[in-house]
């Protein structure tokens, strides 16, 4: 496969690293507010943290998968060229 898809895994890796930083930033956000509505907001905040964590994992898994596909694509391209 051409260079474009090789860059895809790199791009994904970069975004994944940035997402980890987003997670750290979100973890640091605090405020003072009590009561039921505040409790719901804290739950939403906790949910957001969890979902960013899951997204980071999803990115990491995808980076590995995409690297494999990119490699396979390169092999196939090379074989095709050799055959041709």
């Amino acid at each position: 496969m051409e260079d474009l898809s090789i860059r895809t895994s790199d791009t994904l890796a970069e975004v994944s690293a940035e997402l980890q930083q987003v997670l750290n930033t979100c973890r640091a956000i605090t405020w003072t507010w009590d009561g039921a509505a505040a409790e719901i907001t804290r739950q939403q905040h906790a949910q957001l943290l969890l979902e960013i964590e899951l997204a980071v994992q999803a990115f990491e898994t995808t980076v590995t998968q995409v690297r494999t596909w990119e490699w396979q694509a390169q092999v196939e391209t090379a074989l095709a060229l050799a055959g041709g």
Partner: protein
Amino acid sequence: MNNETTSDNQLSVIQIESPLQVDTESLQQAAYQYQQVADWLTSLRTTLGLVTSSPTIFGNLIATEVAHLWGTLQALTEKTQQLYRRLTHAQILYEAVEDANIRGFSHGRGTSIQQLLQQMKPAIFISVTAADVLGRTYRKFVFRQVTKTLHLQGKPSSYLIFALIDFSLLQLASDAKTAYEEVKKADTWFLRYSNSQVEKIAARIARMNLERQAANQTFLPYLHVNPVTADGQLYTGVELNRWDIMLGETNIPQTVTAQSQAVGAQSRAVGAQGQTEWNVPVVGEITTPLTVSTLLQRTKTVRDKPLAKTASHKFNEKPRSGEVEIIRHSTRQPDGQVTRSYTIVFKGTQDFSLDATTSHDMQTNLQAMASLRNDMSASAQAGLEMLGAQPGEAVELVGHSQGGIVSAELAGEAAFAQRYQVTGVITAGSPVAESNLAEGLPVVSFEHLDDPVAALDTKMNPNSTRRLNYSVNGELANPPGNATGLVDHSLEGYITAAQQVEAQPERSLREWLRTRRELMHLSKETRSEVFRFAVTRKK
């Protein structure tokens, strides 16, 4: 569900609680951070959006994965933005609550006027002081110059510069003062719409009607409340004297009974097992509404789908009749007995005139705001009586805008509360802070921060046991075509807000709904039948 109410929206809904520990500055700071994170996530999404893949099998696989991750980032952005909106909303709200505690004046609009006045004060002070100081200097200078001129015949040119600056500053101070006075006037105007003023207006309406009656002009002395069939026909109903309603002298149960005897067997009920003396047709059976949003949805149905041929769903179309819905819930209990409870559903204002033929007009608004018996509350009670509601049976009231004001007024009316067991009130976009609702009565109210109708009482709804007040902020992503043009007052917005709260309900709301089910005797066995009554003012 309807697209209008389920489309993604920019609303945030917060239950107003007080007193609370709130640091609004930290809320503002946190909101700002969420906004930064949302921007960051958007930029990451843009980066992913730029990725291209070749149209090979592997390329397609990669493209699918990237698209999936793009979607994940989009969802995260939306959630972050929701938190940003929620914290910003809380910050505005609790600054207003703080302000209310200081001034006893709390609504968003009122607060912003007060804030403006506060901000203007230092500017005026600076302008006035500067003009004054410079003026004194200038006058001393002039004195000296005049003296010099007299003695030395010189040209006093430099004081002219002072004079010019002084004049400009005086002008500025005067402008600032004028602007301040104008805003102050607006503030006073706003405060005039307090209940005492509304009561005066209501009294004026009564006088107006009396004069019209005397002059045999447009006053419509009778109110007809007629059961409506599913195809819009009006059945024989009751006639009430509007003058007596206004004076609070109508005993509706007695009047309905007396007229029932008078109309005779022909118009009497054919309903099974003595359900009702009157021929009140069931216009439909619905799934028992068990949430606040489904109850508010009924007000939308009443507004958008009136049945009476004399009614209209269009705003300001001068319909001949208004309409009120009553839902009768019948529940067979384990001991075999059937309990009945009722939900009265009121829609909002439909005509801004003071003496429309429909009761959804300004006259009803003003009377209800002044906690006076009005045509809509009288009609609802007449409807209940025609349905054969028994003393002590459970009744709840739901309404948007005018409907909420009427609901609160009727729930607080002593004769009504003595006859039935009023179990709860739900209002959306209604100024009900000063209504006579009994302490401890279960109430849920929604008010948008920028809803001018909800702000007419100029007060925050009081917190009390079982009273849940929700503040709404932001806008629907796709606001519906709203005839009044008041997007922040739209019923659709309030329904969406209620759905949003119910998606993640606080314990207090779950408890509120549980209490409602108990008081209204609702269970899986409940049958909910819908009845409609046309309400017409007549000569």
